């Protein structure tokens, strides 16, 4: 298996505020990793650095062997966050057609309908996204993200504000993406979902990785214990 992501001693500060300290991480293609950590631990900053929208203060990032700000690398990436990246005043179809055009999707008309069917929004394709519920918006966001068949998905707390039905649907969609061999990075506070979906987890605390483990070797209870103990652990490792 080839390396999808290589982070070496990444540090990031915003003036006097430290966001990340010496973060190193290797991720193989097709791996699904959950990044756990409390608010302000540096999860979003880490995703921003991986996506190339933020530069690290120190260290190096290689995404599929190249710089994340490289255009060909960007084309292999999709980001899903609590920001939808959708236009309220466009219909679902128009939003996807716009992104299909930007990402140079082959046979865009057919592909747009395919992804709409995948997220079960075909019947709402002519409706303005401003009229959508939070769950429907998140599904459309997934459709927007997978439209260009990215090799890697970066998900920044995508379950925030969703009801149980929408969470179940999003989980199924993510597992489907995983089965297609896509590399997935997910930041979440939900330990059960992390165990259910991912192969591996890391815990970020005080802006550094304090735990890196395989999900198969842990249970949600185990993970909960580890999640709530990082302060002591951080004292040893950071």
């Amino acid at each position, binding site marked *: 298996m080839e390396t999808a992501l290589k982070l070496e001693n990444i540090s990031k500060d915003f003036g006097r505020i430290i966001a990340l300290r010496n973060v190193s991480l290797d991720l193989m293609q097709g791996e699904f990793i959950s990044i756990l950590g409390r608010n302000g631990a540096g999860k979003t900053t880490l995703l*921003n650095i991986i*996506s*190339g*929208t*933020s*530069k690290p203060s120190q260290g190096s990032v290689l995404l599929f062997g190249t710089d994340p700000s490289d*255009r*060909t*690398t*960007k*084309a292999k*990436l999709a*980001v899903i*966050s609590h*920001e*939808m*990246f*959708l*236009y*309220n*005043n*466009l219909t679902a179809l*128009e939003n996807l057609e*716009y992104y299909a*055009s*930007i*990402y*140079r999707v082959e046979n865009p008309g057919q592909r747009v309908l395919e992804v709409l069917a995948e997220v079960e929004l075909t019947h709402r394709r002519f409706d303005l996204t401003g009229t959508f519920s939070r769950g429907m918006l998140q599904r459309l966001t997934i459709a927007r993200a997978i439209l260009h068949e990215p090799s890697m998905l970066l998900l920044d707390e995508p379950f925030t504000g969703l009801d149980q039905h929408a969470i179940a649907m999003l989980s199924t969609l993510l597992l489907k993406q995983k089965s297609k061999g896509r590399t997935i990075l997910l930041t979440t506070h939900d330990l059960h979902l992390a165990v259910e979906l991912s192969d591996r987890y890391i815990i970020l605390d005080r802006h550094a990785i304090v735990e890196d483990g395989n999900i198969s070797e842990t249970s949600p209870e185990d993970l909960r214990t580890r999640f709530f103990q990082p302060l002591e652990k951080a004292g040893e490792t950071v």
Partner: protein
Amino acid sequence: MRTALAILKKDLRMEFRSKESILAMWIFSLLIFVIFNFTFEVSRLVMLEIAPGLLWVAFIFSGIFGLNQSFAIEKENGNLRSMALMPVDGGSIYLGKFLSVTTIMLLFEALIFPIFIIFYDLHLSWEMLLLIPVILAGTIGFTSLGTILSAVAVHTRNHQILLSLLLWPLVSPIIIWSVTMTGMVLNAEVVQGFYPLLLRVVAFDIIFFTLSFMLFEFILEE
């Protein structure tokens, strides 16, 4: 170019659906014309002196509203960040936004100009066709610089104020020359100095556009 056209199509589709910018710009300009027309009881000669300034006041104030609106829609739902994630160069994104802002502004100008003619009782003549390159050059200068500065200002809390503060000093030569040329045309006094002025505005347009096109990549970065 494909990226720029996709952005242009998206922006125009949204604008024609909501008519938010054009309608607000049009009403604002109409108010300016009405207020000035009924406030000053001056002779036609004096009115011809102040009319070019009034026309450009309407264009520019409304244009600033249009510029603010252009990037406000990108800020909604984090779309500005999605632009930074796109596998395209910043120049293409700039070109798309520039084309949409310019198209909307030119459309608004075409809609408001007949009202201006009626309110200030101006006589139509073939010479007035010279206003086309004047308005086109002045508008392009304003929007080429305004587009990049609007992208800078949108990140801040008081982006509307900041945009005006950044834009005015830089764009004022273009506006002053455009007002001068408009005055020459309206007064039927197109003299030798007209064409060098027009060339000067075009030169500024090229400089502003080229610099903005090259620098826009950095605006999208954090």
